[in-house]
């Protein structure tokens, strides 16, 4: 049985073999780009908006709303990164109902890459917000003795982020495969519908956790602003 689409080789470019994970990631990227280009080609600012624009505006408003509620800050700096993560994962998971499509998030390489993006984004956003000194000082609070645990926590949460998404999507496809050979009638359909739900929830969890981690890296400033507000 196949556990990940990594092992399906589509074609090879010289020494580099292009597997199904890569190809389907490209398909999703192309799909997202083409659909958003096609819809944003004719935007209107009046009340009379097209169906596509309506859908996109609802999605963007939803993501902005969630980010604002989690961080209590202006969502604009985080919107491109977190929104892209969410849209990529949700498209990949939802398209897994299409026959022949192997969701690239069902491969540990894709999810590890996404988790590494989050791992890198936390200090990037933190330093942009606080400055290098203040961000690094964050690691020594409340006491320097906790430094090793903070570092281990950062690494292990990245691992958990990657494996959570991989495990959920992979188990969905594997269970569908097993059920097809045991009870091929009706029951796999139910599990597929359940898999859709799981996929959307996992994409939501991934994006929310990313924004929670990023927000925890930019937190100190808020606390100090709070203290300044209270002292005078």
């Amino acid at each position: 049985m196949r556990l990940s689409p990594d092992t399906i080789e589509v074609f090879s470019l010289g020494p580099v073999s292009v597997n199904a994970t890569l190809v389907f990631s490209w398909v999703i990227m192309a799909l997202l780009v083409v659909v958003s280009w096609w819809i944003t080609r004719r935007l209107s600012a009046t009340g009379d908006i097209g169906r596509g624009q309506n859908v996109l505006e609802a999605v963007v408003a939803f993501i902005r709303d969630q980010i604002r509620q989690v961080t209590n800050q202006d969502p604009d700096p985080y919107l491109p990164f977190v929104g892209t993560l969410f849209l990529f994962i949700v498209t990949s998971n939802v398209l897994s109902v299409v026959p022949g499509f192997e969701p690239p998030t069902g491969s540990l390489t894709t999810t590890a890459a996404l988790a590494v993006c989050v791992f890198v984004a936390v200090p990037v956003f933190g330093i942009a917000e606080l400055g290098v000194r203040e961000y690094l000082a964050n690691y020594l609070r409340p006491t320097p003795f906790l430094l090793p645990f903070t570092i281990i926590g950062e690494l292990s949460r990245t691992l958990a982020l990657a494996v959570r998404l991989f495990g959920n999507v992979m188990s969905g496809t594997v269970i569908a495969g097993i059920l097809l050979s045991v009870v091929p009638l009706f029951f796999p359909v139910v599990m597929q519908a359940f898999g859709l739900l799981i996929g959307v929830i996992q994409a939501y969890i991934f994006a929310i956790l990313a924004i929670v981690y990023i927000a925890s890296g930019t937190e100190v400033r808020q606390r100090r602003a709070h203290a300044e507000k209270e002292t005078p």
Partner: protein
Amino acid sequence: MSDFGLIGMASIIIAGLTIAIGSIGPALGEGRALAQALQAIAQQPDESNTITRTLFVGLAMVESTAIYCFVVSLILIFANPFWAAVQSGS
């Protein structure tokens, strides 16, 4: 029994036990968290957005222990270091 058979048998049995025992704790914890969240939503339906989001984040945290067990059993089955050592030795 040969080294191959012994390592294979031990890996598969332990992988099954790892995920079986390791998922008990998170399952109980997640069930408890979900029950509490449902109770909270029933009492304060207005706050259901915040409660649901916090629930998801909390469940993800609770789940990570089960995920570590999952990783260990995957390593035991697919990337067993002892298996590789025996294979390269023989």
